[in-house]
């Protein structure tokens, strides 16, 4: 619950991981889930307390026939003068019994068969899986229809046939769960020390497999209710128990004479199924929580209000740095990104400011979770508006990106700002060819005729050092190695002829030898194409070798910004020095940060103290109290060098941040 950002975390994951409430309570927060819970709960309560709720015996002739709903009989009476409300209420009980028995027995059968097949393997697995397939190819409704039609309508028959035919999916799920757990280290280890198989199954394997099986079994309840109703409609219901299907069937001849006879039981079926489905949706929905509306509104208003209208032709002249050669290509001002969570807005980027000049390579460095990727996505305008609130300004070549409409942003992305990512293999669409994906960029370029696109594509691939570009044009992601895929990604980036390339940990997932090749390629391209690069990494070696300047980021802010030269001989912020010190000299990224104790804090509110204070060696050593009382500002301490640290504040009153 501490990381604000995975190495390649999307905004969604950030929130999901950061939400302390992700669990059952979290899932039931949406209105749909609440409705599902409510309807299902109501159904269960009515079913259990049927005797207390129902005004009369559902079979008793308690009133005149065909009385429409009134205060005497809230839902009216049927053709024999039976109380419809009592029928609906007792029908809930029948439905619950059918549903539960079917669900539980299919759960038991499915779990036993799936576990046996998965654990035993070999011919047992073969036989059981054939059996499972057999059940799968026997259509359930028809089997039920057949058994009930041939052996006589009765809930026991129906329940038996449903239970015997609905375990198939559960068995498959349990089996595959067992298979995957079976090879897990702890199980292998337990087996190695001679733990008996049944106990292993019971203590290690089943607990892991049971959750998805239960979810599937729960859905059987709804299915059973529908099948029961369907069979009753065909006149194959059990007349000895009131069920909704029975009532619907009974209502058939009177559809036009007494609407209430079919409407109420029909509505009961519909509502119950709706409830069960909503509930199961809520249980299985992996989607993240959305930000509370309250926060979103506040921040959106702030962003939209004072900024230039999205339709404005150009940037605000007052603030426009102008497209002259001296101004930076990219200027980020006071960038702030928050994600809504259960416990309040989570601050991912907190007033970040940086600039990149044309053709410049800026390294943005920091640990996992410091906000680097979120910054990159915010610059490119790729954060999901429904979960993230972005504030601040991003000027790109004189254009206020925040004020651009989506269509304009789409034009800018790809043609002027390009991005590459940490996992190149996953960043390529698995079902589209490389050529198609490069083509998506080329298509929008007016200067390349349709007929030239293929050649251009091949040239681009050639340009990024792909050996057999003609073949790779037709290739899919799964056919490329990591390094090749990253080269393809770079080719895609180049296709638009961008001024700025945002490279988010472009080499982290690659082999060491390939890393160097890719970085060299990037450096070369930066020079030949006059392309600025925002190189996001946690690797100071990479930065010092390839970047012109370095911005060190910590907990959503820049803590030090300096040239690569100065990084070598005059790093000032304790975090920067700690990062440098943690460098073992050889590249094994995950080992080195271990030497800085602690992790990047999760910020739910703006801190009053220095963000690094808790982990800061010098502070502890010198027992500085101010570090824990106020946050320092980023101040320029020299040419091209700014630091955010109390140790380097020129005036102590600059605590206005």
């Amino acid at each position, binding site marked *: 619950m501490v990381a604000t950002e995975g190495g390649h975390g999307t905004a969604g994951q950030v929130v999901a991981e950061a939400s302390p409430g992700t669990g059952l309570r979290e899932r039931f927060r949406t209105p749909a889930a609440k409705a599902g819970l409510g309807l299902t709960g109501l159904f269960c309560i009515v079913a259990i307390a049927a005797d207390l709720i129902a005004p009369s015996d559902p079979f008793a002739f308690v009133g005149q026939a065909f009385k429409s709903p009134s205060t005497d009989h809230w839902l009216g009476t049927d053709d024999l003068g039976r109380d419809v409300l009592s029928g609906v209420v007792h029908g809930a009980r029948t439905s619950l019994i059918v549903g539960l028995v079917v669900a539980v027995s299919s759960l038991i059968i499915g779990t036993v068969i799936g576990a046996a097949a998965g654990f035993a393997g070999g011919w047992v697995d073969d036989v059981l899986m054939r059996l499972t397939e057999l059940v799968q190819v*026997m259509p359930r409704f028809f089997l039920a229809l057949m*058994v009930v039609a041939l052996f006589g309508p009765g809930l026991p028959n129906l329940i038996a046939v449903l239970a015997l035919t609905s375990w198939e999916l559960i068995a498959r799920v349990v089996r595959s769960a067992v298979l995957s757990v079976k090879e897990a280290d702890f199980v292998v280890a337990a087996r190695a020390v001679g733990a008996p198989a049944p106990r292993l199954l019971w203590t290690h394997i089943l607990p892991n497999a049971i959750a998805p099986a239960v979810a599937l079994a729960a859905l059987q309840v709804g299915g059973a209710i529908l099948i029961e109703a369907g069979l009753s409609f065909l006149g194959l219901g059990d007349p000895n128990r009131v069920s909704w299907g029975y009532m619907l069937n009974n209502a058939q001849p009177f559809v036009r004479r007494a609407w209430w006879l079919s409407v109420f039981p029909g509505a009961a079926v*519909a509502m119950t199924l709706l409830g069960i489905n909503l509930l199961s949706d809520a249980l299985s929905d*992996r989607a993240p929580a959305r930000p509370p509306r309250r926060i979103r509104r506040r921040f959106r208003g702030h962003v939209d209000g004072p900024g230039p209208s999205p339709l404005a032709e150009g940037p605000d002249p007052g603030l426009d740095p102008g497209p002259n050669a001296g101004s930076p290509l990219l200027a980020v001002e006071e960038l702030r990104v928050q994600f809504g969570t259960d416990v309040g807005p989570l601050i991912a980027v907190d007033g970040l400011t940086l600039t990149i000049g044309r053709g410049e390579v800026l390294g943005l460095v920091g640990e996992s979770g410091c906000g680097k990727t979120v910054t990159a996505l915010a610059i490119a305008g790729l954060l999901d508006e429904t979960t993230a609130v972005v504030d601040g300004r991003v000027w790109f070549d004189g254009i206020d990106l925040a004020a651009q409409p989506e269509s304009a942003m789409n034009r800018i992305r790809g043609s002027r700002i390009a991005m590459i990512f940490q996992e190149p293999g996953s960043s390529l669409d698995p*079902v589209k060819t490389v050529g198609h994906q490069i083509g998506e960029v080329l298509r929008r370029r007016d200067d390349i005729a349709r007929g030239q696109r293929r050649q251009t594509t091949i040239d681009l691939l050639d340009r990024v050092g792909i050996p057999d570009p003609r073949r790779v044009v037709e290739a899919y992601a799964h056919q490329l190695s990591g390094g090749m895929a990253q080269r393809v990604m770079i080719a895609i980036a180049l296709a638009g002829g961008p001024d700025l390339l945002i490279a988010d940990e472009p080499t982290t997932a690659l082999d060491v030898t390939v890393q160097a090749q890719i970085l060299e390629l990037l450096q070369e391209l930066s020079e030949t194409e006059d392309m600025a690069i925002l190189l996001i990494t946690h690797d100071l070696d990479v930065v010092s070798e390839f970047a012109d300047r370095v911005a060190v980021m910590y907990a959503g802010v820049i803590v030090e910004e300096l040239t690569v030269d100065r990084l070598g001989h005059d790093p000032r912020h304790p975090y920067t020095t700690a990062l440098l010190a943690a460098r073992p000299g050889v590249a094994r990224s995950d080992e080195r940060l271990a030497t800085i104790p602690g992790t990047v804090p999760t910020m739910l509110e703006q801190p009053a103290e220095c963000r690094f204070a808790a982990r800061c060696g010098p502070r502890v050593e010198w027992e500085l109290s101010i570090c824990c009382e106020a946050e320092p500002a980023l101040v320029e301490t020299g040419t091209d060098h700014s630091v955010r640290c109390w140790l380097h504040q020129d005036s102590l009153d600059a605590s206005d941040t």
Partner: protein
Amino acid sequence: MAPYIVRRLLQAIPLLFGASTLTWILVHLAPGDPIVALAGEDGNAEYYAMMRERFGLDRPLGEQLVVYLGRLVRGDLGFSNRHNRPAVEVILDQLPATLLLMVPSLVIAALIGIALGAVAAGRRHTAVDATVRTTTLLGHAMPVFWLSQILLLVFAARLGWFPVQGRTDARANHEGLRAAVDVAHHMVLPVTALVSVYVPPIMRVTRASMIENLDALYIRAARARGVSRRRALIGHALPNSLLPIATVIGAQIGFMFAGAVLVETVFAWPGLGTLLLNAMLNRDYAIITASLLMLATTIIGMNLVTDIAYSVIDPRVRHGRD
């Protein structure tokens, strides 16, 4: 590809045998036999004994089963005495009507379901999403026969827009285009009912799958190269979601037939559902076993088609199998 298909087909054979045997046993263990339905009432004991002998029903069940399986091996699915024709012929006669109902319903449902699923996924957790989900869930939760009756009462009886029953107008002898229009007119209500049943599972799997894909890195990468949200949704997330959608459609084929039975009954649509139902009531063993065998074959076939579709849609699978 071809060897793979052949292997799959070979694997299906024992499965089909198992399914037929199971069905046969079930049908023959059930009380009652087809004699009274077939021949009529008020015969004497001698008459019924003669009829049982005539149809081989006086033999031990094991022997009858052996005879049945022996014929099955030779591709003989039995003779329907009720229809006085080989069961296969009868079923093949009725199949087009059911397909006429199911295929358009499935196509329309797939279009609607995928569109709604995509919209819901694109706007997940918004009011649009909630509305789409609840509406389709309601469609799923409503017993299809009930919905069918309501459609009949409203659109056929009250408004008179559509005919009540059948596949054609019994009085008109249309030909050519007008006949097609007539059939289409009769199809509207049953197809509507079926679509409402087919859409929810398709919508749900589309939405879930799209959401999963929308979170995928390649979508972010596509957006980063200027692909619009819409195009990313339709051009990238959707193709990647088609596989699970195809799987769901394939796996639901039995369920879809079930829906067809109920709809056919209400709208008096002459298809397999009606045939099977009557076969059960009349203990027309040949039709029952042959229909279920055919259903099982269809399900296996759909699974195979889905798998083949996988390899068409998904290059990973395609290359993996070469």
